């Protein structure tokens, strides 16, 4: 993929914001008049079926993790994941909680981390600029890694969430 196709992928990122943890309040200025992400082609998509980027924000409980995996698997390829905040990197301040999953990258492949607790809107834009540069250099290949290493991801998911037959619709 090169030329106008790649440019279009860079310039038109439709985002599903998964903000059950925290940080939703930081994302509102990003998509509204204060910072206006739409000038870079970044808009909020209505459903995961239409989106390219999954933004996972804040801590992951075992309950939300199931929905995140379902959401991620519903998105059409190529798809990218942006993990927002310290909790998605190593658990953050909830690192020893009984109900949270610490590392997001064990369950779905993450392309860009945005560190901070919480990151400011400016750093979210830095993260998206980084993602655009990665797409340009063909380095945002998380969706390929998910297909190649699906057994490993599935093993981690089952370990964290228990019997997969109860919640998994189908294998990817």
């Amino acid at each position, binding site marked *: 993929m090169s030329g106008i196709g790649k440019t*279009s992928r860079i310039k038109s990122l439709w985002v599903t914001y998964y903000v059950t943890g925290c940080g939703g309040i930081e994302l509102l200025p990003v998509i509204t*008049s204060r910072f206006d992400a739409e000038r870079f082609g970044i808009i909020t998509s209505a*459903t995961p*079926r*239409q989106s390219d980027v999954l933004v996972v924000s804040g801590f992951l409980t075992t309950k939300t993790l199931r929905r995140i995996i379902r959401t991620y698997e519903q998105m059409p390829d190529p798809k990218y994941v942006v993990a927002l905040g310290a909790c998605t990197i190593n658990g953050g301040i909830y690192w020893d909680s009984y109900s949270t999953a610490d590392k997001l990258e064990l369950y779905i492949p993450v392309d860009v981390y945005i560190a901070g607790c919480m990151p400011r809107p400016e750093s979210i834009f830095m993260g998206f600029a980084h993602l655009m540069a990665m797409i340009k250099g063909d380095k945002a290949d998380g969706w390929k890694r998910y297909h190649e290493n699906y057994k490993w991801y599935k093993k981690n998911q089952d370990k964290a969430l228990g019997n997969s037959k109860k919640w998994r619709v189908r294998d990817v």
Partner: protein
Amino acid sequence: MTWAILMPFILMFAGLLYMGFARKIHARIQKRYGPPFYQNIYDVIKLFSKREAAFHGGMFHFGPVLSLTGIIMALMFLPVGGKPLFSFQGDLFVLLYLAVIAPWGMALGAGNAENPLASVGIARALTLMLGYEIPFFIGIIPIVVRTHTTQIVEIIQLQQINGWNVILFPISALASIIALHAMLGNKPFDQPIAPHEIASGPLVEYGGKYLGILQLYQAGAILLSTGIYVDLFFGGASNVWMFFLKTFLIYFVLLLIGEVLPRFRIGDALKFFWKWPLGIALLGLLVAVLGGVR
């Protein structure tokens, strides 16, 4: 001839630019900078480069294709500053008939989407169609009655002699422009794809190529509905640029009206359509018939 064949695709491309311009205006009203006006072209190319993840049976995949086919067929009958590809006595009715095929395609596809939001959206879209089509059709009957022709090119030529139909039939033009406002899916009548209520309605399960096809369909539908209105009421156009100027002006004015209005509930929208535009259209028909008896 070559241009007449290419014209539906040029119109769809122009429709994408119109939609991009609408996004820009939307952003400026909200004190944002907004995307570039060619953003929708990027979006469509990106959507066509994606893989499809969902499978919901044959009709789910055939529906968008039927929509796009319907809109391309309808655009072949639309005079764009000259003779269209097909032009014969009665093509006005053929055009109006073909313009309904495209929403049917979307209804068939979205009805198979196995998602309640898609069913709700398509039910709203068809209910709204029931509302705006009747005033629109009654609004254009006076033109046919007065001019004794159902060929769009002849209607345009007669307007260049007798003056624009918007001056001859102002009441019918008013009823039709309210219906046109709903055809474009502008704000008080955007219940079918209301993103905050039903997550973009019929499009909810569509992603990737199918969403790209439906965006092209939407772009064509903008030019089709504004184009019919310009050809019937605003004297058509002597060349392509004049056509684009007139359609864009109408699109722009209706966009500005739509931007400041909230959304009707679907029942209220139907009530509104069967009360005001239908009443105005019937009044216009009455005035035209009484005035036409000479």
